[in-house]
């Protein structure tokens, strides 16, 4: 029996199939014409086209980030990508009965049934296939309370005033290279609006699927919670196995007004590439929330197990007094995966509070970096932050890195940072094996225990899913 905690076997990616469906596609490459093409396909108003074009012109002048993040990747050939692909049969905003059965089958296979009879009770789903939304469940029921939950494209048509008011208000089009790219070419995404004082009666969820080869996915999500509103939103994602890398550059903006709460949970399981490190998704995502009103709260929870590269920093701007920002993260890298993830908590208002709990797990030859910024501005008297950043290593060829940036500009604030790195102990594994568990179950139990503080933040069904996923993504990490 070997005592080494390394192995070569890698678990097959379960969601790697391709749906054979005819698509309406933009020609390859990126130019102002492509931006116009996308905007025209989506029958967008003039102001939105202008917004896109401005973003595009800004993007052209920016450079892809390679220096500061602790990740290595081949520069993306943006002219060799396709920026729009829609299943041909999918009516833009049709009801679910009109959706192509092949698509329904795809989601069924992914464990996301879209027919309302079968769907998980208490979860409404918006399904995004390549560039467009193929259907949203429970829309009518939510509308009874004035809640808007629809695809971004539909929101542009039906609620242009809301979209125009908040689009880019948290993540400006010029924010960074990938955010600018997204602003220019975003195709679809979800839109959520919770009116004043309404507590959304069910979990809202978007399920993203990349299907077509050489297509980037650039979705955009905007969630607005009016004063006193409350919403919990979940996001899940998968993609077929392909040899080439695929780009996913999404933007998520959250706006919480006075006393509102937004809880945003992600379970990301994009295809991570094969055992040699070929293929897999480049997950370059900008997520940011603004606690615009006093006593508001934004909480990010993420479980990142997929993608060849993950580059994302879900952040909170704590503008309202007494507002609260939270970031709970589990990031797993195995095989050749790389992750550079963390958060930014920007304290502007008085007595604002933020909590960061990051759990990084590295196995195989994976490289996992936590990068976090806590910034407290002069006016944020009495602000407090607590950061806990733990890393776990499985084997000898992986790495864990921590880059905390702390910038406190007043004297009444307190910032606390705790960090730990542990190697998964052979003695822990042996102890569990001595009690009858095999190696994989032992590791999965130890790792799940390590991630417990984050999992308890997830809605119930998702927590179970996340635990399973973690087990699967670490299978074969130890021999």
């Amino acid at each position, binding site marked *: *029996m*070997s*005592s080494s905690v390394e192995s070569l076997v890698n678990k097959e990616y379960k969601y790697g199939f391709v749906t054979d469906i005819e698509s309406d596609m933009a020609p390859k490459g990126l130019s102002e014409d492509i931006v116009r093409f996308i905007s025209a396909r989506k029958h967008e108003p003039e102001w939105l086209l202008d917004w896109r074009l401005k973003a595009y012109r800004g993007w052209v002048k920016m450079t892809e980030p390679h220096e500061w993040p602790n990740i290595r990747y081949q520069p993306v050939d943006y002219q060799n990508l396709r920026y729009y692909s829609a299943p041909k049969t999918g009516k833009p905003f049709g009801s679910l009965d009109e959706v192509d059965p092949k698509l329904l089958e795809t989601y069924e296979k992914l464990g996301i049934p879209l027919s309302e009879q079968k769907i998980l009770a208490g979860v409404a789903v918006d399904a995004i296939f390549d560039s467009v939304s193929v259907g949203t469940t429970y829309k009518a029921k939510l509308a009874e309370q004035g809640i808007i939950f629809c695809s971004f494209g539909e929101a542009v048509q039906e609620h242009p005033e809301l979209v125009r008011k908040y689009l880019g208000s948290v993540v400006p089009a010029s924010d960074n290279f990938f955010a600018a790219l997204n602003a220019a070419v975003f195709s679809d995404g979800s839109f959520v609006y919770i009116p004043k004082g309404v507590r959304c009666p069910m979990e809202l969820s978007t399920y993203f699927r990349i299907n077509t080869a050489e297509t980037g996915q650039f979705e955009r999500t905007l969630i607005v919670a009016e004063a006193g509103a409350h919403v919990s939103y979940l996001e899940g994602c998968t993609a077929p196995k392909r040899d080439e890398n695929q780009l996913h550059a999404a933007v998520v903006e959250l706006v919480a007004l006075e006393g509102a709460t937004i809880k945003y949970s992600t379970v990301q399981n994009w295809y991570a590439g094969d055992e040699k490190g070929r293929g897999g998704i480049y997950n370059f995502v900008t997520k940011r929330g603004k606690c615009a009103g006093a006593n508001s709260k934004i909480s990010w929870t993420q479980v990142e197990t997929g993608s060849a590269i993950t580059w994302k920093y879900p952040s909170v701007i704590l503008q309202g007094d007494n507002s609260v920002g939270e970031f709970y993260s589990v990031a797993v890298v195995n095989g050749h995966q790389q992750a550079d993830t963390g958060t930014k908590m920007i304290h502007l208002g008085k007595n604002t509070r933020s909590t960061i709990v990051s759990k990084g797990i590295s196995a195989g030859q994976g490289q996992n970096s936590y990068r976090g910024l806590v910034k407290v501005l002069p006016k944020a008297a009495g602000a407090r932050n607590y950061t806990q950043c733990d890393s776990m290593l499985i084997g000898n060829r992986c790495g864990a890195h921590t880059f905390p940036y702390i910038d406190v500009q007043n004297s009444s604030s307190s910032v606390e940072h705790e960090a730990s790195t542990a190697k998964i*102990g*052979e*003695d*822990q594994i*042996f*102890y*569990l*094996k*001595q*009690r*009858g*568990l*095999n*190696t994989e*179950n032992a590791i999965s*139990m*130890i790792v*799940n*225990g*390590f*991630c*417990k*503080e984050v999992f308890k933040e997830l809605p119930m069904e998702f927590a179970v899913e996340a635990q399973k996923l973690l087990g699967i993504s670490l299978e074969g990490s130890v021999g």
Partner: protein
Amino acid sequence: MLNIKDLRASAGGVEILKGINLAVRPGEVHAIMGPNGSGKSTLAQVLAGHPAYEVTGGSVTYLEQDLLDMEPEERAQAGVFLAFQYPVEIPGVSNAYFLRAAYNEIRKARGMEEVDSMDFIDLLEEKLKLVEWESEIMSRAVNAGFSGGEKKRNEILQLAVLEPKLAILDETDSGLDIDALRIVAAGVNKLRSQDRSFIVVTHYQRLLNYIVPDHVHVLSSGRIVRSGGKELALELEARGYEWVEAAEAMA
């Protein structure tokens, strides 16, 4: 039940066990005593299959099977249980969850149905009584922040739940206060049966007053240098290990 023949094992290139012979029949209790560093824990760990030790010679048969050829979890599933000298902490995993997972793995391996958490709680309540413990302990993370004595008691609770055929207790008495020692020993005595055997590693005769052994062995520098009945432990207590070691040197 267990037959150890000329067992040799080393760690980090150093030979620790230098030819152990030991036969344990069903229902027997064997005590193993011996000075610090003589190889008692190594023997226990080798029987359980710890990867840090390399078996360099000899054989171990357990219930007609080649024990050394089995994975640690297969040994556990076949009824080998080791109460660790230093139980390991598993942060974030509740004691109850862990113990049910272990219980079900062992049941599965034996072709039995898994039990759900409700049924398991009933079973647990009963076993907790055996070690005179409150159920609060079950919601805490496995051994995390447990006192030395609590960790040992937790090992015996696991023993009671998993009902092994061969239980190896490595210094379970160390670190227990007088009451806890009595409770743990009483628990072990209740678990004694015709078809369950024990190997009890200890430094103290005191434990053997409670758990009366059938055989006592003295391990010294990786070898069993003396075996006898329960009186041997008393003699050791009175005369120290030097006495056996000197006798061994003369032989």
